[in-house]
């Protein structure tokens, strides 16, 4: 057995290395989640090409498709943003359904390559649901 004096510095070294790895990796893997209102308000913080997730309801009558690209409006009641989705469509994607799309601003449009359908019966922020 190596000297007991060496064990604690060795463990501290391992712990420090793990912390550094976690910290650097976390920074690279964060994705912001914004509502249409927040996305519009914080437009300057998220320049074109800066990825984030946008969540809201697909506006009825806004969904069109051409050449595999879907275009639709996403709203939270306050703001509405036009979304262009190039990637795979989630199962049973339709109008009047809650979605979370991931992508980036491109001018006044949001260009997304992934989308998820939210299955909550009521599409609300957690705070408002809790109050009800």
């Amino acid at each position: 057995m190596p000297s007991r004096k060496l064990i604690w510095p060795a463990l501290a070294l391992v712990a420090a290395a793990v912390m550094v790895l976690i910290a650097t990796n976390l920074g690279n893997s964060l994705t912001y989640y914004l509502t249409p209102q927040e996305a519009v308000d914080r437009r300057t913080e998220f320049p074109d090409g800066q990825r984030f997730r946008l969540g809201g309801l697909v506006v009825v009558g806004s969904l069109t498709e051409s050449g595999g690209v879907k275009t639709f409006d996403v709203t939270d009641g306050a703001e509405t943003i036009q979304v262009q989705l190039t990637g795979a469509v989630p199962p049973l994607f339709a109008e009047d359904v809650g979605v979370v799309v991931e992508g980036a601003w491109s001018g006044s449009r949001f260009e997304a390559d992934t989308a998820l359908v939210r299955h909550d019966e009521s599409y609300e922020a957690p705070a408002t649901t809790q109050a009800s």
Partner: protein
Amino acid sequence: MFALLGIAGILTGLAGSIWLVIAAVRATGVGEAAGLRRPVQTILGGAVLAMLALEAALLADDFSLEYVANHHARATPFPFNFATGWAALEGSIVLWGLILAVYTWVTFKSVSRTARNEGDRLGVAALAVMGLVAVFFFGLQATVANPFQVCVEAAANGCLDASPFPWAAAQAPPDGPGPNPLLQNHILMAIHPPMLYLGFIGLTVPFAYAISALAIKEAGVEWLRRSRRSTLVAWTFLTAGIVLGAWWAYEVLSWGGYWGWDPVENASLMPWLVATAFLHSALVQMRRGALQAWNFVLVIGAFSLTILGTFLTRSGVIGSVHSFTQSAIGPVLLGFLFLVVAGSFWLFSTRSHLVADSPRLDSLVSREGSFLLNNLLLTIFAFVVLTGTLYPLVIEAITGDRVSVGRPFFVRMIVPLAFALLLAMGVGPQTPWREADPGRVAASLRVPIQVALAAGVLTVLFASRIGYVVGAVVAGTFVIASGVSLLIGRASRAARARATGPSGSVGREIRRQLTAEPSFWAGQLSHAGVALVAIGIGFTANLAQHGEVAMEPGDHIEFAGYNLHYRSPFLLTEPNRRVQGATIEVSVDGEVVTELRPRANFYGGDTAGISTPAVHTAFTGDLYLTLLNIDATGILLRMDTSPGIWLLWVGGLIAAGGGAWSLTARRRALVTAGV
């Protein structure tokens, strides 16, 4: 009437819990358990009554209860109406109380056996701790998570306002919205949550023994033996629960995957990792007297993580696919978590003089050294998952931004840890206690390494050259080959030593080895299960193929060696849902192998359907079809393959089976020894 019965059950359980705490604290001096029978029976009776009342109300469509009105529908079929009893927050706490009551009863039975002769102070004080935990969970049901609130303002489809008083004038809605559609889509939903709960709540028992040992100042090895055994019970259920949960996600959530690093999934993984670490480190203390303080930390940590997990998933603090639970219960659970962590570690710090200094270990190249490595890796693993799960909460609390930590974080951090763990699993069992001769260990590993490398070569030749796939096969095979060669090696040495007849004697010796040391070999079986899971993950994560296609009836398409023929759409009307689906004929090399029917289920008046995949399982892997869209003209179909995914389910259940084997073998040994 159900409300009255249910409340009576909860209050009985609460009263029994308080009674148990008082009686057990009084009896701790001599360790006399006889006086605890009544309070324990009271808790169990109350918990059973509450659960039965809730289930009866669901089966009887009693919409005057708020819980039934908001989580049940007349059309919900069996067993989903029954599973609704734990599918939403308040009901899940009732099930929690029931399982805790059962564990308390089982613990009491074992304590009263040991207490009969010379008293059992450790066990009696542990029952006091379990009583305290039960006070909390029955208290929850009586206050912020009361499932028996009476609906006083009905809507057409649910309940708007409720009263906690069972005598309030009830107003029952005609029908309810039914459970969350995702929860009435698959039979596993009826099995997997109770399994997980048996695992989570089972970790209360080792925690109770640890706190008891500290409280009565008996930090010897007895608490450790009992804690390890009860951890093994919980671990077995938890392993099965996690695997079944992954399987459920795969069969229901229709994204082709089984693990999303979702907080709900992480909440079950973290206690599992810490409990696994404890199962190993406890052996180091039993054999070598080391790691005494560390074992307390692990047991307290595993229990705290189950409470943390409950807080994360039951308070709505993190929105996720499991976002079906949002309530005011959060602050209470957080307070309890704080109490458990702060109280336990305060008690621990005042008793630290009882924990003997670790004896010097002879060498790090030894069984105990490999267990130290195992504990280091598992602890880092758990810490990584914890950080990734909590970090978004911290960010949101500080800046108000909602962020998520992506899958890449977990994958980058955990894949190297997983490989290191596999290597430790292969080498560790081959190293003797105290001090290993490195040359001898290397010699005993020669055959397993050769087998593993051969498996790697076969993988490159016939399956894939992707590094991670080959690496997973080599590392996983190494673990399994190491265990098998250990068994055969010992058996053939024993056969030679006995000099019995040359034919068939090794087989007999293998059986003798297995029955002589069942818990060691059960552990090796669990290792093999984990290794299979690792190989399965390696395959599915790297070799899955995906495709998307628009089809009209009559169309054919080739995908990943399958020929898919869209025959016709179908439409079903079931009591609780409308089903739209597509019948797709699957052939391989011109021969029809199966017919798959992926579907979209529409529950109640929902416009958004739930897509349910159709899966064809073969030895090489699954074909997984999901309907992305269906209308009058055709379908949009997503096609996925999941190579070798059955290895995950089989491996996971083998790992759990190892735990079960160890438990039953020890029980049989006790019975034959006349204990």
